[in-house]
């Protein structure tokens, strides 16, 4: 293969006065910001939905199920496109114009990625709660807890511990999935990747570097959650698998 290797181009100056490695760093920053913000949205909403789907209320369960069905069954990129291009046309005109002109793009990206991931987290939270014996809820109720208190003090703390390994993969996934938000104009790592390829054509070097960046992000997330897992481990209790190692 007659490929022209050039690792030094990362230190070349670009038109905007920055160096290429600055582009990568800035992309890395946006990727992290979008991912963490989406993760927060997804955890919050996913937990609420997950809890809803385990309550005895039929309509809450139905609502939660419908949400998961819709948001899990359409590819992320299509969902983002819907939020960006289709939704502003469907809402009242004033709101639509505001969404198009004043709403920062990162909000759309975070909402899109967050809502998409929330469906998956809702599945896991539900599975975690359901994997607890029914007796745990009964024990809480028998002590006089309200339904909500059984969630707050008894079921959720255990459910989170149980699904932490699954949440770890989801948190790693969100970094990878954030690559799709370039489609709605976020200048994150994958955007910079494409941009640098276009400008320099040093495809292999940049692919290696960007891949490593994603790898490191996912790895850091993995270690962070492994740390949380270790910190929240209950003495004497063996729960599920011991996470990834």
């Amino acid at each position: 293969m007659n490929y022209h290797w050039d690792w030094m181009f990362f230190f070349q100056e670009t038109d905007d006065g920055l160096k290429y490695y600055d582009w990568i760093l800035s992309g890395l920053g946006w990727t992290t910001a979008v991912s963490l913000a989406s993760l927060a949205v997804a955890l919050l909403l996913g937990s609420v939905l997950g809890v809803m789907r385990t309550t005895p209320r039929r309509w809450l369960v139905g609502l939660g199920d419908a949400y998961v069905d819709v948001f899990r069954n359409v590819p992320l990129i299509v969902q983002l496109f819907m939020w960006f291009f289709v939704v502003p046309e469907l809402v009242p005109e004033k709101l639509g114009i505001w969404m198009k002109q004043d709403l920062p793009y990162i909000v759309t990206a975070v909402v899109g990625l967050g809502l998409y991931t929330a469906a998956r987290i809702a599945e896991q939270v539900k599975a975690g709660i359901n994997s607890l014996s029914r007796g745990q809820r009964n024990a809480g109720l028998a002590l006089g807890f309200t339904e909500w208190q059984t969630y707050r003090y008894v079921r959720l703390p255990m459910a989170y511990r149980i699904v932490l390994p699954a949440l770890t993969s989801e948190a790693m996934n969100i970094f990878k999935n954030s690559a799709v938000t370039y489609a709605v104009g976020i200048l994150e790592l994958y955007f910079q990747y494409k941009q640098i390829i276009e400008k320099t054509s040093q495809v292999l070097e940049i692919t290696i570097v960007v891949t490593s960046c994603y790898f490191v992000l996912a790895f850091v997330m993995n270690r962070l959650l492994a740390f949380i897992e270790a910190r929240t481990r209950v003495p004497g209790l063996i729960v599920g698998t011991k996470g990834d190692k």
Partner: protein
Amino acid sequence: MIEIQNVSKWYGSFQVLTDCTTRVDKGEVVVVCGPSGSGKSTLIKCVNALEPFQKGSVVVDGIAVEDPKTNLPKLRSRVGMVFQHFELFPHMTITDNLAIAQVKVLGRSRDEAVERGLKLLDRVGLKAHAAKFPGQLSGGQQQRVAIARALAMDPICMLFDEPTSALDPEMINEVLDVMVQLAQEGMTMMCVTHEMGFARKVANRVIFMDRGAIVEDAAKEEFFGQPRSERAQTFLAKILNH
């Protein structure tokens, strides 16, 4: 104290309880036995409305549990319950297991709740384990903690659902001893159990259930002397003869 009147319950078209009627008076100890799947657990859970039922009524201390206006959490907090699988909260220390409901439900201060919890823990002989987690205790110890947890709420009566059937044979007695003591102190108790030794020792009455119905409801002496129904006879023969 507990009045169960004509209670019937269905899962879909499957009837689990058929027209059950009985009562437990203040200070009485009633043992419920019967084959697996006969509805014992379901019946006892109807008492504190952990299971809803479609027909009949259950009155606890003058309050009808099936009444939609009843404050169920409050009612339940006054009825202690002990489960087959202990159901301690695995992520809390023993102390927290004992204290949390006192604080969150009865509104006691944490100090007060811990003090009361530790007193009861001492009573079941486990004071030394207060800082441990449930997973670090044996089954028998966990079940004694579960009893202490229920007692910490100062219940007016106690429900037991096969409290010893998940235990190693050696540990059964340490739990039964606590229950016997409780009975002797005059606690109102309704116990699902197959421990006929326990029934012989402290029960006032024995209820025998089969296929969702109360087949026998007799004084202890009567039941062990000569059960009326054939089904109860064979059942007794089976569980006593080995």
